[in-house]
């Protein structure tokens, strides 16, 4: 079956679920479950929509890169859906729209189509965050999201005016052959970079993240922090590796933004005392790191970084939000000694955090080592220094958090975690540990992923 179904079926289900309000969340769970398994039978290749071939019509591309992206995003989406289906009943249809938008984002090969799916997913995201009961924060997110995507559209149109095409592969080849100096294409690329920067939580553009994630609940936290972050990360990666041409002034601006995001992200996390804020700011820094790795060209390892971060943030936000709902606020003080009497949750939380820091025996360690190794081989000495110093800071505030959560003698907070959550969290932690030690498959798949991330050019 062709990949278009991944977008069509959720949209159809969304409209059906509006009719049967009561069964909305069952439809959601069923569709997301089906989409995860449908991926098995999807045949790779490019799908032209409406018969027009590549440079003229919209084209969807399913290659190794987007297949892995789809697997990850769909499974994470399914996990979030399962865990929240009984609690958030009325959100079923919006989630389905979000699923369609995300799948569309990952599949599309056309820049304007990317804008449309970005908006569809964006609006679904704004609606999901309304469950936070913080209308001002959602409003803030809406405004910034719209400004970001309008700038993306502006940049897109400028490129269209210059090169006459909207198809990614065609755009890339025409930019290369057009012989324009980098200075010319810098402005539209910067606009598109800012447009995506807002969604990808890069520092100057992400003032919405604090409002949304700091008071998120079991649905919005994992959705925004892991599912959306992963999807945006993958798409941004595809854009960065295929379309963008990054040279002198544009490169300077982008590097400044990224260095500032990584360093400031870690500093902010170090300075904050609320658990969710720590996770939020560390995911800002991780997002910037993903972009850095994409820019230096090791797409394979960037993919593994995204997977590691997305899984980790899912587990972390699930546990933190469940505990916050039952404890009231999420200060580190009230969380002290949380794991003393629920050890399984504690162990998986610790395993996942240590993997994010990059300590041995975990997936994070393998990814970080290989990224640093490739950076050194490619002669870049500055970024590894920044990464190492910031990961020391990151290590300190995560360990401080962990030790507070584990070691406390009297009046421990009573938090009940239901079985499904424990089950999911433990599986993810085990996966991270297994792939941390048994690194064979990770090594090979990362190297050959690098080769496929370049699209072989639509139908040309």
């Amino acid at each position, binding site marked *: 079956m062709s990949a278009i179904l991944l977008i069509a079926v959720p949209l159809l289900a969304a409209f059906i679920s509006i009719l049967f309000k009561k069964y909305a969340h069952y439809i959601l769970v069923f569709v997301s479950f089906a989409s995860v398994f449908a991926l098995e039978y999807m045949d790779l290749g490019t799908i032209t929509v409406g018969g027009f071939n590549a440079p003229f019509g919209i084209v969807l591309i399913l290659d190794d890169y987007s297949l892995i992206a789809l697997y990850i995003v769909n499974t994470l989406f399914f996990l979030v859906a399962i865990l929240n289906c009984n609690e958030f009943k009325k959100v079923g249809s919006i989630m389905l729209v979000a699923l369609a938008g995300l799948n569309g984002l990952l599949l599309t090969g056309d820049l304007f189509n990317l804008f449309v799916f970005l908006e569809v997913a964006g609006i679904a995201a704004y609606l999901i965050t309304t469950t936070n009961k913080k209308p001002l924060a959602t409003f803030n997110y809406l405004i910034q999201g719209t400004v970001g995507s309008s700038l993306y559209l502006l940049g897109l149109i400028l490129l269209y005016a210059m090169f006459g095409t909207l198809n990614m592969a065609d755009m890339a080849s025409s930019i290369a052959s057009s012989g324009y100096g980098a200075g010319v294409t810098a*402005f539209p690329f910067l606009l598109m970079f800012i447009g995506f920067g807002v969604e990808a939580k890069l520092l100057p553009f992400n*003032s919405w993240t604090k409002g949304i994630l700091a008071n998120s609940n079991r649905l919005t936290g994992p959705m925004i922090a892991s599912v959306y972050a992963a999807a945006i990360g993958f798409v941004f990666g595809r854009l960065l590796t295929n379309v963008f041409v990054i040279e002198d002034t544009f490169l300077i601006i982008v590097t400044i933004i990224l260095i500032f995001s990584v360093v400031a992200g870690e500093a902010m996390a170090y300075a904050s005392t609320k658990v969710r804020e720590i996770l939020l700011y560390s995911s800002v820094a991780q997002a910037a790191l993903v972009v850095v790795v994409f820019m230096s060209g090791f797409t394979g390892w960037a993919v593994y970084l995204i997977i590691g971060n997305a899984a980790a943030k899912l587990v972390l936000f699930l546990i933190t939000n469940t505990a916050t709902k039952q404890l009231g606020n999420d200060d580190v003080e009230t969380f002290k000694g949380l794991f003393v009497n629920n050890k399984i949750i504690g162990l998986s939380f610790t395993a996942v955090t240590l993997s994010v820091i990059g300590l041995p025996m975990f997936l994070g360690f393998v990814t970080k080592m290989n990224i640093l190794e490739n950076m050194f081989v490619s002669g870049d000495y500055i970024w590894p220094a920044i990464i190492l110093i910031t990961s020391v800071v990151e290590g300190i505030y995560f360990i401080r958090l962990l030790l507070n959560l584990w070691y406390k003698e009297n009046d421990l907070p009573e938090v009940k975690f239901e079985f499904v959550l424990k089950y999911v969290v433990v599986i993810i932690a085990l996966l991270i540990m297994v792939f941390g030690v048994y690194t064979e498959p990770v090594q090979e798949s990362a190297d050959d992923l690098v080769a496929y991330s370049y699209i072989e050019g639509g139908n040309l």
Partner: protein
Amino acid sequence: MTVEFLILVALASGILAYFVGRLNKVLGAVVTIVASMFIFIMIGYMMQDINAGTTFNYNAVEYMPDFVTFMVTYLGLFFAILVTFIFAMVSFFNPFFVEKYKYPALYSMLYLFSLAGVLGVFLTDNFMVLFFFFEFIVWSGLFLIPLGKNNKAAISYYAFSTAGSFALLYAIFIMFAETGSYNLHLGLATVSGTTEGTYVLALLAFAAFAKLGAFPLNVWLPRALGKAPDPITAVFSGGLEKLGAFVAVLALVKLAPVGDIAGTLGGLTEATFLFASQYIVATLGAMTIIFGTLMAIRQDDAKKLLAYSSMSNGGYILVALSLGGTLGLSGGLYHIVAHALASAAAFLAIGAVSRVTGTTKMSELGGMIHKMPVTYMVYLIAIISMAGIPPMGGFISKWLIFQAVIDNGLILIAVAVFFGSIGSFLYVFRPLAALFLGQELPQHRDKAKEAPFFMLLPMLILSGLIVFTGVMPNIFLDFINDVIAELGGTGLLLGDYTITGVNGVLQPTLIASVFGVGVLIAFIIFILLKKSKKVGLMDTYTAGNFIYTEELMHYSLDFYAPLERLYEKHINITKDFYKKLENKVVDFGRMVKYFFFTNKPEITVFWIIILIGFLLWGEL
């Protein structure tokens, strides 16, 4: 008996200890004893194979990624035997201490995990495997420390040792970029002498300083060792600090020193052939000695005092290794052995006291000798060696280090080294007088009783070894000569009983026997004369008035008051420095939060316009 098998045994027994520990705390700890003894004996066997002159290369195990290789070298084996021995001895204490901790099963598991890590670090010739186990020890040590009193110490421990291990990682990658492989010997060989060599040397020295707790990075050592559970402090100061010494050997010995020959300071007749890098490391080592000694003299908590003493001994090791040459190397390596044994024994003795009385604060203790005489003797022998006094091992290594310092004519470093050795009499005597001797305080009189046999056994073995390394050092020095030969230096000139340094010959057995003869004569004089009347401790010369309260008659608080007054004002220089550093990071974080994260949308729009303006600055 391959290395992977031993590491697997350690890991497996760790997990076994966890599950057994869940059933019965003490049994879990017993597993740690059995496992660490087994590993120590196996390492001992490996010693025979190596003595046959062949360095075994156990490489490639299927399920590990292909580049994991282990190699047993003299240097690695030297450290491995020493540290596994300390682990084995200290493990005897686990069953008695494990009930007190919050996660007893976790305690035994992590104890064996760090042992596995130690094996991994010392017995490999591949840098990435070394880093993997290096981090693994940091990680398992991290969750052991908070089992003691509080977890702030664990955070500073984590901060410094990760900074150290990431510096090591950066150096590894520099070498990888040069040689394309992670081989340890190849990497160090190709890089030494080049400009990258200076970066690698600086980074490896940074890592060694962080792990040894040397001067610039010493804030974590007293906090972590003071607050950690007692057996863990013994393992840390005896065993895990030797990781830093191992990295120091890699940095200062295997890597050719860098920089111009500093000795030729214009027309000096006595040109010393030391390189700039050796000078810097030696001076930092000297500052560590002075700082450690001064801080140790004023500590009230016995464990903190011994932590500072292991810091200043770390300084000795750094000075010795940085001077290099036959004397420097053999002095440094022998000091590692002597210090490891002495500080492990001392910490175990203090641990035995704290198990019975619950506190190691000297102001709350006194007169423990009357109830714990054997622990007292163990502690006495340990501190004699730690202070470097003749009949014990410490004197031999200090004598070698003095020879090295004098031979190189380093005056200022000699001042620090002499100050350190005399200062060590002071801070080593303080716990002896305040904790063991003096009045026996009533609150401890009934509770205190001698440590059980299984706690005394390791302590006695350790003190026996301390005396043995002092009286018959040549056996250990032969093995150290093999290590030096492997590192490319020339070994020490050893007669059957004598050690010939640069400017003097030493026969330790003769000193010990003359010491014995002297004591015999004094004993004969003592016995011949009239027997004295036994009198209680309270019956002392107090100019006539009657005394009733022991506390008033026990001098332990502010023991060296006149000396402490001299440098009271500027004690925590480094602590304040790191506090300020931390505050800087927190302020920067808050400032960014204030500027970038508010609920008003115009912030983002403002920054977008700024960025676009920045790009289009030239064009319009």
